[in-house]
């Protein structure tokens, strides 16, 4: 079996495999976000911040979702070390985030703004710690890793008609190939499954998983019902409609091609919930790109493939986001944001399998360290989903 595809990744103390090696600077609460960004600015290639808008004034599920997401990033395999920055009076508990990083065997420290006496003192101390961490984890070397250790996030955004005809089916073939080799793929954006849920449910490993998927889509539809609103204002988006997509069903049928055609749907997980099974997983994320990518990377995806028709810049603080388009005009106009152009599928009748092979090779190269457009341009968007008003 020496022919199995491999990549060069980082073997973490807990056995998980990373494709990047960052020091992560995590604010427990929005109030600490700017301090985190200033600390990370000391060495942007090695240190990344996770600025967010939550961490206090949240009740019930939202508090849980914020905490679960931050904990997931503290244990993420693309992260080598963690510095938690607290304010001191917030809901999210710094020790719980640090504990998640320690459990994963990562060097970890906490600083608190109120305890250290303010912004300048915390930034100075934070830079000292983060820089020392960067030196420490910088000694780690990439080692050959089996492809089965990959969790691939499947994402589309700024879709047009080419998405469903070229980029999504090419990505679907990559997902099927990865899963056939023992890897995992995760699909989010439940609203964009609406209208195509019958196709995914038919591939569920067990009847309970099919039922879970249908319930999830029903819940999202019921949310629109409960508000008395028509989702057509946002799904499809105005840009989707200009591009020729008329209804959410049409958008969804194109979008679920990302999940391939053969892979079994193994599991349905909550937002930022850990993907634990090889095969295809559906995660409960909204359609909003940044919240969706944030959730799937939280679930353990080390790499994201993001298909787009109109072009879009979204990245992530810890995971490379590979941009692929089937629209030749977009590939030219948004060349700076685009990693792979598969428009030949539509303009020159290129075989979809050939496009998929190019994408598969790109995923392996990126996992081995090749930088993607979003990384070169400094796109590190991060947004935790929320469902309830802030109290």
């Amino acid at each position: 079996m020496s022919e199995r595809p491999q990549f060069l990744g980082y073997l973490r103390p807990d056995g998980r495999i990373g494709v990047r090696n960052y020091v992560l600077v995590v604010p427990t609460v929005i109030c600490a976000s700017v301090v985190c960004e200033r600390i990370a600015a000391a060495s942007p290639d090695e240190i990344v911040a996770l600025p967010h808008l939550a961490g206090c004034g949240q009740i019930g599920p939202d508090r849980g979702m914020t905490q679960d997401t931050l904990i997931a990033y503290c244990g993420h395999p693309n992260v080598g070390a963690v510095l938690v920055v607290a304010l001191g009076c917030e809901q999210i508990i710094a020790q719980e985030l640090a504990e998640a990083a320690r459990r994963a065997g990562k060097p970890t420290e906490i600083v608190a703004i109120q305890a250290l006496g303010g912004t300048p003192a915390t930034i100075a101390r934070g830079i000292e710690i983060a820089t020392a961490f960067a030196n420490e984890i910088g000694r780690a070397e990439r080692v050959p890793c089996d492809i089965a250790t990959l969790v691939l996030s499947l994402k589309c955004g700024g879709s047009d008609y080419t998405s469903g005809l070229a980029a999504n089916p090419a990505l679907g073939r990559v997902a099927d190939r990865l899963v056939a080799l023992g890897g995992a793929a995760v699909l989010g954006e439940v609203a964009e499954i609406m209208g195509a849920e019958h196709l995914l449910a038919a591939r569920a490993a067990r009847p309970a998983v099919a039922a879970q998927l249908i319930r999830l889509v029903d819940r999202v539809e019921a949310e629109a019902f409960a508000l008395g609103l028509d989702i057509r204002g946002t799904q499809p988006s105005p840009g989707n409609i200009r591009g020729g997509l008329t209804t959410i069903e049409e958008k969804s049928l194109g979008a679920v091609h990302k999940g391939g055609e053969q892979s079994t749907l193994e599991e349905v997980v909550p937002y930022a919930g850990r993907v634990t099974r090889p095969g295809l997983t559906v995660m409960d994320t909204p359609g909003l790109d940044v919240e969706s990518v944030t959730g799937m990377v939280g679930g353990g995806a080390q790499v994201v493939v993001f298909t787009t028709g109109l072009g879009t810049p979204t990245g992530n603080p810890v995971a490379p986001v590979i941009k692929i388009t089937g629209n030749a005009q977009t590939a030219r106009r948004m060349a700076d944001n685009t990693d792979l152009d598969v428009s030949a599928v539509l303009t020159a009748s290129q075989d979809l399998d050939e496009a998929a092979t190019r994408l598969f090779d790109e995923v392996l190269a990126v996992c081995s360290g090749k930088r993607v457009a979003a990384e070169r341009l400094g796109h590190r968007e991060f947004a935790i989903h929320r469902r309830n008003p802030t109290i």
Partner: protein
Amino acid sequence: MNSALVISGRDNVATALEMLEPGRALDLGGRHVVVRDRIPPGHKVAIESIASGQAVLKYGSAIGTAVSDIAAGAHVHVHNLASSRGRGDLHQGPVHPLAEPDV
């Protein structure tokens, strides 16, 4: 390169891959249709007549319902095709108070 693409044999629409002008005769793998409207690339053209209330099919599945009679060759988009999903505006039932803020 084809000028339009029919994805599934069940479909009653094709996707334009280039600008289609009225009068253009399309041969879509043996299915013939004359274009009636200007159809931009990525937009849909009916390849058979579709009655109001009938499902519009693409990818072999329903993508919504025709809200007026659609002639073969006509542009199919938001003016004559409506989604059947997520329509809280048509929902008969309790509306969440957040839908109508009183401030």
